[in-house]
């Protein structure tokens, strides 16, 4: 553990990126204590309130006999601390829940992206030149040349009942384009690596193709794979924010991107509702920055200069 921290000190990008991500995780899951989930839905409280603290409710905490009671009062007091929107949703509750939802979507997209990307990337790279490889490369080329976001919009809109799209469905939708780049990136790494003498040695030791992929190539590419995971998550999050921003998805759910939709719908800019605009944007920037920093940080591990002894 100690060596991990000393490494992180030398790699600030990774450190900060992980730190931001941990903070957001704490915010979205730990922060649930501070909210009443129902407050993230319409008509929970008064509309269009700038950030306010309900001091009366907070003062009553001491009077409550049970812990649950105290907690309820706390939640009441904090309900409008981020302000409310034009539908009377507590923005604190919305954003806490929304961040969690976005992270989940990102995780699904990341997992699928890296899962497919790894398998396809390794096998097409190792067996380069074969029919299998040609099919995979062509597919990847097609997906990457397509305007990805428009495709997502098309797919999302044609999904049975987009208005009731679940988190999982949204995650699956955005992963349609998330797998392509990791596949290509991993494939090119494998292409160069398979010419290396240690792979030749493995062949001379009668290791089979899949064995070589699993035991020789994959461990060396672990940092690269994790970096690709960070990139997939990033892609998934961006895709989902874009779709939600256009109002595609279940508009009642407190998705971060959906807040953007509502901002436009209710002309929050014209009405000067700065809190409604700033809060989700700040969280989104934090999330994306965190992911990018992790990706940068991992890039440094993934591409080390070979260190030889003096």
């Amino acid at each position, binding site marked *: 553990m100690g060596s991990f921290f000393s490494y992180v000190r030398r790699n600030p990008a990774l450190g900060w990126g992980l730190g931001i991500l941990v903070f957001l995780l704490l915010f979205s899951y730990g922060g649930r204590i501070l909210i009443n989930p129902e407050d993230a839905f319409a008509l929970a409280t008064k509309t269009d309130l700038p950030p306010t603290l309900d001091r009366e409710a907070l003062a009553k905490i001491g009077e409550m006999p049970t812990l649950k009671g105290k907690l309820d009062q706390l939640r009441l007091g904090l309900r409008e601390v981020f302000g409310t929107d034009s539908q009377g949703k507590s923005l604190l509750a919305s954003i806490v829940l929304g961040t969690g939802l976005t992270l989940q979507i990102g995780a699904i997209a990341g997992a699928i992206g890296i899962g497919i990307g790894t398998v396809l990337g390794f096998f097409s790279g190792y067996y380069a030149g074969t029919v299998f490889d040609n099919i995979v490369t062509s597919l990847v080329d097609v997906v990457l040349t397509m305007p990805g976001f428009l495709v997502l919009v098309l797919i999302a809109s044609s999904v049975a009942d987009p208005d009731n799209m679940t988190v999982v469905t949204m995650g699956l939708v955005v992963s349609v384009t998330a797998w392509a780049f990791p596949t290509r990136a991993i494939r090119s790494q494998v292409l160069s690596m398979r010419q290396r*003498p*240690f792979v030749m040695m493995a062949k001379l030791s009668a*290791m089979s193709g899949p064995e070589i992929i699993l035991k020789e190539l994959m461990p060396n590419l672990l940092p690269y794979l994790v970096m690709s995971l960070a990139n997939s998550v990033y892609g998934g999050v961006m895709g989902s924010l874009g779709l939600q921003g256009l109002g595609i998805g279940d508009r009642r759910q407190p998705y971060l991107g959906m807040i953007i939709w509502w901002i436009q719908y209710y002309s929050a800019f014209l009405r000067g509702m700065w809190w409604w605009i700033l809060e989700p944007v700040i969280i989104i920037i934090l999330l994306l920055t965190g992911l990018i920093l992790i990706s940068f940080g991992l890039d440094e591990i993934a591409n080390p200069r070979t260190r030889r002894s003096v």
Partner: protein
Amino acid sequence: MTSLLELKDVTKVFGKKNAYTVALDHMSIGMPEDFPYIITIAGESGSGKTTMGMLLLGFYTPSSGEVLYRGKNIHELGRQEMFSFRQDVQAVFQDPFAVYNPFYKVDNLLSIPIKNFGLATSRRQSRELMERALNGVGLRPEETLGRYPHQLSGGQRQRIAVARALLLKPKLLITDEPVSMVDASLRATLLKALRSLNQDFGIPIIYITHDLTTAYHVSDYIVILYHGSVMEAGDVDPIIRDPKHPYTQLLVGSIPWPDPRRPWGDTNIAFPKSVAFDEAAPGCKFAPRCPLVFEPCMAERPPLFQLDDGRAASCYLYQSDETVVREDLMDLFPRKDEVEAAAD
């Protein structure tokens, strides 16, 4: 008798229509398995020597011709036959660092083939084999096993690679510049280990190198390559002491012998002009740079002519009726064991 491993009229071309290189040009050579020889495949960079090694190991596919293992094309072998091929033919490569997977300890290089080829039935037995092999190359197991590649020196790593060959006792060992990235003081130890593999265990070795001094020391035969074609081939001793082909003369004359009493200045060699090599040009490949070039050289590729002392040179200067039919280069090498038997 069928050769263990054979190149049958193999040509390997790299590149595209207008920018291509003929790395190896119609090479036919068969490696017998009934007597232990060390043959050097020598040449400068671009000669095709490494390509030849890669073709023999099955890592490159020939553009034309066939690579045969016990008579069968190695790119068409079944699972069992492929396994047998890998068991019989092993290699030592040039770079002592690149042959190791940096993720694993160096033991891996030895333990994996032991496991895959079923050379030991228990972990203890496997360990014993590894230790014996390491001792055989002058390494102490307690100082080398259990370490990661970057924790050992280049010399130690290369010795482990040779120990691997010692352990596996293949029927043929192909070495590609095994000592060029190793310190001078260690070279002798490694070459001694290779020579011992050959003499004590009867393993034939193909020694690919650009260094004629070590080639002279360690091998019996030598094949000099230039741009993919054989210039001269035969017993290593006369070829280095008294090279006949102008290219060999140029090579040998450029060797910096570690003997101040034998300075370069004595060997007067005409330096060839720097000309870009033209793949499509007819005639001898060395003609554009040859100081002794004359009329027939430019017209057609010279075949290998047999010279009196058991060697062959691809040069019109030695034109005779004794053309070596390029079926198998190996045929022209006098068998050392037969020569010795005859001498008794």
